[in-house]
């Protein structure tokens, strides 16, 4: 408990007014362009104050990664991002030795080796000196820090984003446990590296596979659903400043009508925002059937979906008008 309390004191976010209460946090996030629901803000608030990583789930394009970016901006902390993929391992996530540099140095030292060892009294002493040299090669200057190590060594704290954790292997997930629960990592040659200020950790997942229970237990969980119409309108208004209110109303209504349909890929928030931007570029101030048909490829990413929606555009527009 005491350790936790101390660590909490060291956290920079404690000084920030934005983390004083959940409401302040909602406002703070809004000021950097992220419109958060109460549930999102509460989860983030708890994560910072309990010093726990936060696992963010939700369909693609719902604003998972964006939440981490906005938090970093809000706190003025550096963002360290690690994209996960199949085959990602320790050497790419935590640290690696600079092999090239080591090799270069051995080559240079080779010539001097004879001179160094010439005055050694016997075999034992020569071995002893060689030992000393060997250790030099596995020291700080030859260490190549990767994202996790970088995050642990940021003395003033940082936001660490581990993106799409579900794409990594199971073994890597297990490896992450030490980093996430104690904010430390062990390098055999150097010892344990512990974060002075624990980073704020976000993990995102698209549910490609189910994550292990051990990992879930160590994290707070946040599921971001597709937003309600009113919230989505505010998001569009915040992301696309010059948009007219009537257009926002129409397009959010249309997207919501689309989500009711049985599509291969339902449009999520990022598609709505992209669409709004596209419509602004085309100087549209309201939606009509022709305009929708022309720009359908912005919100629908599969040919079958487009074919299915196209004949129903007018009807969908009418439904969109009636959505509150």
């Amino acid at each position, binding site marked *: 408990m005491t350790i936790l309390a101390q660590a909490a004191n060291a956290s920079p976010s404690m000084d920030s007014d934005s983390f004083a209460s*959940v409401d302040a946090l909602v406002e703070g996030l809004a000021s950097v362009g992220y419109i958060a629901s*109460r*549930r999102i803000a*509460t*989860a983030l*608030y*708890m*994560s910072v*104050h*309990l010093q*726990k990583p*936060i*696992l963010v*789930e939700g369909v693609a394009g719902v604003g998972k990664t964006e939440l981490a970016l906005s938090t970093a901006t809000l706190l003025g902390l550096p963002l360290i991002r690690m994209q996960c993929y*199949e085959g990602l391992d320790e050497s790419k996530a935590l640290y690696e030795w600079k*092999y090239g540099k*080591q*090799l270069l140095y*051995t*080559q240079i030292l080779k010539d001097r080796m004879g001179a160094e060892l010439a005055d050694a009294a016997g075999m034992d002493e020569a071995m002893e000196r060689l030992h000393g040299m060997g250790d030099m090669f596995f020291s700080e200057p030859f260490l190549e820090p990767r994202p996790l190590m970088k995050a642990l060594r940021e003395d003033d704290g940082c936001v660490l984003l581990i993106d799409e954790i579900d794409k990594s*292997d*199971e073994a890597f997930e297990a490896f992450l446990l030490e980093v996430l629960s104690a904010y430390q990592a062990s390098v055999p040659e150097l010892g344990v590296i512990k974060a002075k200020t624990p980073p704020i950790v976000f993990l995102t997942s698209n549910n490609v*596979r*189910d994550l292990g*229970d051990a990992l*879930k*237990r*160590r*994290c*707070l*969980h*946040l*599921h971001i659903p597709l937003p309600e119409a009113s919230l989505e309108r505010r998001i569009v208004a915040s992301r696309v400043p010059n948009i007219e209110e009537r257009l926002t109303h129409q397009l959010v209504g249309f997207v919501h009508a689309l989500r009711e349909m049985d599509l291969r890929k339902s449009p999520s928030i990022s598609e709505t925002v992209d669409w709004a931007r596209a419509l602004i570029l085309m100087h549209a101030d309201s939606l009509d059937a022709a305009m929708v048909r022309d720009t359908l490829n912005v919100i629908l990413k599969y040919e079958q979906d487009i074919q299915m929606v196209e004949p129903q555009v007018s009807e969908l527009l009418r439904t969109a008008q009636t959505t509150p």
Partner: protein
Amino acid sequence: MQHQMEDFIRALRAADVRVSPVESIDAHEAVARIGYADRELLKDALCATLAKSEDEVRRFDRAFDAFFARDPFDFATPPPPPEGGEAAPPEAKLEDVSEEAAGSELAQIILAGDSTALTQAMERAAQAAQVSEIRLSTQKSRLTRRLLDEMGVAEIEKIISQARRLEGEGGAALADRLEAGRKAVAAEAQRYVQRQHDLYAAESGRQLREELLARKALNAEGGIDPVDLQVMQALVRKMAKRLADRYSRRRNRARKGHLDVRRTLRQSMAYGGVPFNVVWKTERVDKPKIIAICDVSKSVAAAAQFLLTFLYSLNEVVDRMDAYAFSGRMIPVNQILDEHGVDKAILEVLKLIGFQQTDYGRALQDFAENHLDKLDRHTTVIFLGDARSNYADPRLDIMRTIHERSRSVIWLNPEPESYWNQGDSVMNRYLPFCHLAKTCNTLDQLERIIEDVLRQYVPH
């Protein structure tokens, strides 16, 4: 409040939200930080710490709303004095009845019509009566009685009978009011116990039913009860998901722990012969390749729907699976399973070829002619059927070919072993060509067998 948190976590566990001790510590810390004042905040904070998947979030929301629902007491307020007419005689006081009555807390609460105090009294009594330990719906009436006893209803009854014996109309008026209050309290106690039952026991009742269903024979007389069908399908889906979680994890290579000298030397060339990169020998892990052949003819009508549901789930779990269905002729059904939801896919398949005369020989011939090239030494063939071929040629020669070409042949027969080879069943003639033949007519058996199949391929 400590006690309430513990109860709530128990309610969550009963609602199938898995809460570990660490998580409950987290929850307590969260509550310590935000307090109980803001209900929405409390809900969101607890949700973040306790519910760990989309499904659990839904169940959490339901449990939270039910648990913290404190609908205000619908409690009889003191009746207004009758208007006009002669002034009603003043009501007797509790003190007039007896000294004991004056000390009765419940009686005072009832007379004051204080619903808050009554709620609190009921909470206290519920704790003493251990109402939250409820497990079965049959316990409801007993617990209600215990709850009322703890609240001191017996005392009230005594006071009422004493009040009735008092001189004058005041006593009767008091008794009437107490009587009305007692009834309200009894009704409320019943509601309270019901709610506790919903919170802690309803889920375990459902689990009990699912367990029974998992062991129920699928080809029993009359097939599956339509009421159970949905539960059954949900169970099958759950089972498929469980299997998927365990086996869909990507493990293409497993390290063996032996040094691969050849590749290590090759790599060291780049560093002037210094072996910087040490390469270990790896082993390729086979992904299961499964061919499932499902009988949907008349003789297995009862089990067909279940077998297809299973086929459907398996199709979602295993990447490389080919599914076929037949009664007279055999057709590939992968596409149907991929394109439709489970209910519709099953209907489509049954509409296409379901419930006709079985002909195993003909179906095997169809398979041999069109799909034999799908078999290789990595393939497991699973037959789901009763091997009742209407006395037609069973085409053992094709069965032999399948046996020789594939890695293993598994036959799951919904009939018990004693029926095999009776009547038109040719099960025993197929038996030599199966690596494994088992009776499989409950979900439990099915899961165990499929797990065995998958385990052969994926190391733990």
